[in-house]
């Protein structure tokens, strides 16, 4: 047991009492990161992290992030630190500015240890498509099971107890799904709550900054620091930032939860389902009202196609600047078209190219009405239905994924003609821009699985309140692959 394994609150107390220093924590995080066996990192900033930690000598009692080491997904701009988005087309790129979330964490004197792997350009959900290869799940030393993606390295870093928290991004479920596979809290607040300035765009109408932690308290404290209006991001909200951990201990009696019936029914794993039902009973005992609701079969089955069309269309347009001229290595060519053609052919992996073609095809004038605009209309209908449910309920609850982390051998990034509702429902939170959090529920064969709560827009405080109650029920705060716990339920 090292100080870095302590819950954030205790770690902060130890720092304030000078039992441990930011430098010692940074050195421990770096030591663990260098010994990592999960391919979680793109870059370790030994020099920068140690230099910054050395400047932190006077503890700040009221700043819970003071001297805390963390990792950022490698699609956040970090001044002077290589940033690749795990794509060959960005190898060698060194940003000249910090993303707003990086600046905010720096101002809070958290210590960035380095950058983590992702599915290339954050497009993918398997943690297998980054240019450094597969990222592994720390809960599976045999390296047969994925950790999910796209924020695979950040999930692995927190799950392996290398740092207490890590930044990710979430366009479909890229924080909240890996959180389920890695036994973590995965939070994505309301669209516009956290500035995206400096986050490499994938699909801006769906992109969110998110993050991983090992307890709900840390998740709430992080939002205090990361939320807020940013003049650099015109989509960031002017709404006032709240004190998000204020209601963590408030009783949950009277809160109302809608459980998505069809999502639960579609899950084949009876053991996980049974455990999920037991957790509902636990919530009822706390005075929470639980209703099973129908979302609509047509709409749930339409989620993935709608997501693919919208996200690919936005991505193909956003990533047009990765052309070997403005960004990306020069691969030769006699004309500028040839320069771009050679750079893009060599720079993107197969999955990215397929996604770009799909997006471009959907945007072609002759296909726009039946593909792109139809998907956007359907998104409106999906969002309307989601908000309708949330009129009568405080939260929507479902298992975050239908199973424990799948085996790599079963993973596929190809489109499937099966409607995998329980695998895709988390994108509801992106379509509607609602705050959504994944929490650990239990373990099967030593591998974690979790649930997901989604709340009304800008009601993060209440979302943390129910999350804290759920965490108390399961007793699964502060779990890691180093120290797995037994679920209380």
């Amino acid at each position, binding site marked *: 047991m090292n100080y870095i394994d302590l819950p954030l609150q205790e770690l902060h107390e130890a720092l304030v009492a000078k039992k441990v220093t930011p430098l010692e924590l940074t050195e421990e995080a770096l030591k663990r990161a260098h010994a990592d066996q999960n391919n979680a990192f793109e870059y370790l900033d030994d020099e920068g992290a140690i230099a910054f930690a050395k400047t932190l000598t006077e503890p700040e009692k009221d700043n819970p992030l003071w001297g805390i080491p963390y990792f950022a997904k490698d699609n956040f701009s970090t001044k002077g630190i290589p940033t690749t988005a795990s794509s060959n087309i960005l190898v060698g790129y060194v940003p000249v500015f910090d993303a707003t979330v990086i600046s905010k964490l720096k101002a809070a004197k958290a210590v960035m240890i380095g950058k983590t792997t992702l599915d290339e350009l954050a497009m993918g959900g398997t943690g297998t498509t980054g240019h450094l290869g597969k990222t592994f799940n720390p809960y599976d030393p045999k390296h047969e099971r994925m950790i999910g993606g796209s924020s695979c390295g950040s999930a692995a870093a927190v799950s392996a107890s290398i740092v207490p928290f890590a930044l990710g991004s979430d366009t479909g479920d890229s924080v909240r799904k890996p959180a389920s596979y890695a036994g973590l809290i995965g939070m994505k607040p309301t669209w516009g709550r956290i500035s995206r300035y400096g986050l490499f765009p994938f699909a801006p109408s769906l992109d969110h900054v998110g993050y991983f932690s090992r307890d709900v308290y840390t998740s709430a404290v992080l939002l205090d620091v990361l939320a807020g209006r940013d003049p650099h991001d015109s989509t960031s909200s002017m709404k006032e930032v709240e004190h998000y951990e204020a209601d963590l201990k408030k009783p949950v009696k009277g809160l109302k939860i809608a459980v998505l019936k069809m999502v639960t029914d579609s899950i084949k794993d009876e053991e996980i389902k049974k455990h999920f039902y037991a957790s509902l009973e636990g919530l009822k005992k706390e005075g929470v009202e639980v209703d099973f609701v129908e979302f609509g079969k047509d709409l749930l089955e339409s989620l993935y196609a709608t997501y693919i069309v919208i996200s690919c269309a936005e991505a193909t347009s956003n990533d047009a600047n990765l052309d070997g001229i403005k960004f990306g290595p020069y691969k030769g060519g006699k004309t500028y078209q040839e320069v771009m053609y050679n750079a893009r052919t060599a720079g993107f992996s197969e999955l990215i190219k397929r996604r770009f073609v799909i997006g471009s095809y959907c945007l072609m004038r002759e296909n726009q009405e039946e593909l792109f605009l139809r998907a956007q209309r359907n998104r409106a209908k999906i969002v309307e239905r989601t908000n309708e449910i949330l009129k009568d309920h405080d939260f929507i609850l479902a298992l975050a994924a239908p199973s424990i982390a799948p085996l790599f051998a079963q993973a596929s990034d190809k489109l499937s003609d099966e409607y995998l509702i329980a695998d895709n429902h988390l994108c509801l939170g992106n379509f509607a821009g609602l705050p959504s959090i994944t929490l650990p529920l239990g373990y099967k064969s030593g591998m974690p699985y979790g649930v997901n709560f989604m709340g009304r*827009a800008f009601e993060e405080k209440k979302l943390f309140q129910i999350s804290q109650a759920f965490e108390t029920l399961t007793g699964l705060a502060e779990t890691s692959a180093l120290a797995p716990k037994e679920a209380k339920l």
Partner: protein
Amino acid sequence: MDVLKDAANRLLFDMSDEQYKTLYEEFGILTKQMEKIGEIKGLESYAPMTFPFDCSTTYLREDVAEEPLPRDVALKNAGNKQDGQIKLPKVVL
């Protein structure tokens, strides 16, 4: 298949025959699913949604003088530079 190859070339990259085959299969699935979405009742009455909700952020920023990016920083990512400028390969024939 030719449409897909044309789309890829317009995006300025190429793929292998095997990759085009996978893409072709994916398109079959996607088209079928999108056709089914087209059958959802009343869908045409919905306006295409471009953002999750309206966020009005119109404002006039303060007129504050800022330092521009220093030249040496701006040139940091350039593969080839000369006399304080980015040197590009000749691509106009």
